[in-house]
């Protein structure tokens, strides 16, 4: 990691091997947009190369990478309004072992995830899919560890409700009005 800072380009290749897939999945789950996710990953590595001098030796490297990843996304959406619409393409392309029902559940879950607020979605993606510890997330977001835990808890509650609504809607199309009132209440 230190060698990146010292300007050895080959090391960036090692970092790419290690981080491109997790970062790509981080963005896919947050945005639901594959093309955009690839653009953002590319931008992250460009920034790593460009700002490698800002990495402080001795600090966790992963945290630094995710800090860049977060900023990259924030900068992108500052220029462009976030569109987190579900694209049909996002449904898993080939999942040979999964049953059709599991595939549908996965799709509904991802849609539910995209309906969460930015803050809640990010905290869930980081903790559940990127395997970041609450302490790491707290440092990343500049808040208390307890705040992160509360967010996880609320995010899950809301996710459950949205998922339930989507499941109901897909099972009995247009015969039930979606429940929305209690979703924002939280704990």
């Amino acid at each position, binding site marked *: 990691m230190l060698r990146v800072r010292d300007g050895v*380009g080959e090391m*960036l290749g090692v970092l*790419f091997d290690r981080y491109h897939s997790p970062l790509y999945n981080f963005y896919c*789950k947050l945005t639901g947009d594959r093309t955009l996710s690839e653009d953002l990953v590319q931008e992250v590595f460009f920034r790593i*190369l460009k700002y490698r001098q800002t990495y402080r030796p001795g600090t966790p490297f992963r945290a630094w990478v995710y800090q860049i990843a977060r900023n990259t996304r924030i900068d992108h959406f500052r220029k462009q309004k976030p569109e987190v619409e579900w694209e049909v393409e996002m449904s898993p392309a080939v999942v040979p072992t999964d049953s059709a029902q599991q595939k549908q559940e996965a799709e509904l879950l991802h849609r539910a995830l995209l309906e969460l607020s930015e803050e809640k979605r990010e905290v869930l993606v980081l903790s559940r899919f990127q395997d970041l510890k609450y302490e790491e997330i707290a440092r990343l977001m500049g808040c208390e560890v307890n705040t992160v*835990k509360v967010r*996880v*808890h609320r995010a*899950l509650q809301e996710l459950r409700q949205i998922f339930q609504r989507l499941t109901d809607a897909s099972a009995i199309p247009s015969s039930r009005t979606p429940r929305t009132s209690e979703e924002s209440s939280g704990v």
Partner: protein
Amino acid sequence: MKCEEIAQLLPDYLGRSLKQDKIKLVEDHIGQCAECGAQVAIWQKLSLIPDEQPSPMLRSRFEAMLNAYEEGKSEKRSLAAEHRSTVGWNFWSWMRAPLAQAAFALIFLAAGFLVGRHVEGDRQGTTGNTQELAALHQELTSTRQLVALSLLQQQSASERLQGVTWSTRVGQPDPEILGALLHTLRYDASVDVRLAALDALRHFGDEQQVRSGLVDALPRQQSPLVQIALIDLLVELRDADAVQRLKNFEQTPNLNPAVRQRVQWGVKQLSRG
């Protein structure tokens, strides 16, 4: 224990950072409390969302960037100069690497497209700009065609795959692109590339050139996978000529049993419609 107390422990339980003695407390509770149990269930269910695989394009773009960096370094340009003209530096380095050229073109296109959209948003309604936009669009389309065509002729299968992907981004494909795709479908050495080409051609199923090309491609295919995908597409397109060709194809000796079955199914589907 009450739900509120459990709620404080749950995130740590889910994150597997809860102390051993507390784990049992939580597990006992969620065994009895449906509400807290559902919380754990949805967390676990999230694992159903599969991991995505980035396209080979991502790596090519990264390597293009790295090449640019390496070349810049080997020329021993000073860091200050790099800072002064990052764009120019990248540009000239990229122009030299063949793989990077394609990637550079793609990035340039993406940027152009974004600018185009921006311009469109900003200045809607004025006719002069509409013409400009149309010209820009035309330019974009032809450059995309160029990129697709050059990628389809690459040595590496992943680059040819990219070419196929690019060809679908050309809104109105010209006969040259379609010809290249059909050629890929017939002769490409890689099954993956052939399947991708078939998928790309699906978008242009209304073109007569594509329809006849698809029917012609069937007897030449060696891979049962591609054969079955082709039959499915012919059925999907409901091509009138396809029935007789399928029947002829069924007579081919040594046909894979699964393919033969699919042909029979296809004939039935097409005759019914």
